């Protein structure tokens, strides 16, 4: 009998492909059947064999006799190959860009009309747990109104207002086009406090906050570049930053240079910058091709009268 005929018989018996005169059956472990060279002692031989692709290859003693795949079918040898389940290749987005409950620092978040930014961390306002990120992430550069839905993941990552709304906009520090700004930050109140946790993805719980120091090593967890490390190269910068609505002047900011490649990219706005001791030192909000700019975390806490939770 030729291998193709034996294969057709097996397809009927193990995968349920109809064939005249045979009872179709489905084997729980077989996901595919093919024809290839028989493998003996780890090497392919000249003989053809039936290849049974299985979810998991098991020891002969563990297989119930009724499910055993014979060594030979109609005179053709068989090979058992562990392939796992087959699926179409669809890219799975990293966890940073997916819906996660309870939500935590480092994940994609955004106002319903903003593309996406990063959830910085959970802060405590006299016992209430609030979500901290940038004004231009949660309040759409002063254009958001109190109570606007905040999506996790953000709109760019597929977040929909009807099913991914995590919180509502609570308050923000307005960006001032005339005077020098100190912070770009906003707070959102989760509809269900159990939907958020104090953890930051890949970093863990924050242990308070402090001023950044020159030359210190810092880390951040963000939607786009995920977990990265860098060095503080400037601890008191005044600079002009371009926004969609215009250019704003900022004073007393910190500047970070990445260790391996860029420390941040578009979409990382709102990430908390954390020192080696686990204390928050900055709130990432802007950058140039070579640098990342962040508000000092102590200014952010003072602006709202909140503490790292």
């Amino acid at each position, binding site marked *: 009998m030729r291998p193709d005929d034996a294969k057709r018989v097996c397809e009927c018996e193990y995968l349920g492909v109809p064939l005249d005169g045979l009872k179709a059956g489905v084997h729980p472990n077989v996901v595919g059947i093919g024809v290839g060279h028989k493998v003996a002692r780890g090497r392919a031989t000249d003989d053809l064999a039936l290849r049974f692709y299985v979810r998991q290859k098991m020891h002969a003693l563990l297989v119930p006799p009724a499910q055993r795949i014979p060594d030979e079918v109609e005179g053709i040898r068989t090979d058992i190959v562990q392939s796992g389940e087959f699926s179409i290749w669809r890219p799975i987005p990293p966890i940073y860009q997916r819906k996660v409950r309870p939500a935590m620092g480092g994940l994609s978040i955004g106002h319903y009309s903003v593309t996406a930014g990063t959830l910085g961390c959970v802060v405590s306002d006299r016992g209430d747990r609030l979500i901290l990120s940038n004004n231009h992430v949660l309040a759409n550069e002063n254009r958001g109104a109190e109570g606007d839905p905040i999506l996790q993941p953000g709109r760019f990552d597929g977040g929909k207002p009807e099913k991914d709304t995590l919180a509502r906009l609570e308050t923000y520090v307005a960006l001032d086009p005339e005077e020098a700004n100190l912070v770009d930050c906003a707070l959102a109140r989760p509809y269900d406090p159990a939907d958020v946790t104090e953890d930051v993805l890949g970093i863990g719980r924050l242990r308070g906050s402090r001023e950044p120091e020159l030359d210190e090593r810092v880390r951040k967890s963000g939607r786009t570049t995920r977990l990265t490390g860098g060095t503080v190269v400037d601890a008191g910068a005044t*600079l002009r930053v371009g*926004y969609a609505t215009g250019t704003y002047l900022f004073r007393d900011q910190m500047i970070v240079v990445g260790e391996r490649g860029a420390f941040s990219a578009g979409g990382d706005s709102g990430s908390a910058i954390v020192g080696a001791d686990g204390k928050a030192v900055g709130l990432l909000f802007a950058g140039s091709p070579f640098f990342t700019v962040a508000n000092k975390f102590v200014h952010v806490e003072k602006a709202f009268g909140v503490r790292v939770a």
Partner: protein
Amino acid sequence: MARRRTRRGFIAKDRHGRPMVSAKDIKDRHEARLMKTPGVVGVGIGRKDGKECIRVYVENGSPKVLSALPRSLEDVPVEVVVSGSFRAR
């Protein structure tokens, strides 16, 4: 306390020879003028060779911008850093 004469006047130094006026004070004094220089996008404080310095961030390293910036301000070295322009992320 040791004192050293400079072109712009006296700067008090502590016994390790470090200036008593912090780089931040000097930066604050010159910040407004530096920020008005075309091509300058930021002014900050960093460290170079273990000493505090004033960092001036410029959009690009064109000779016109570089020649308009001082090498040092009141004895604090100035480091010119080509950063490109800053954008909200």
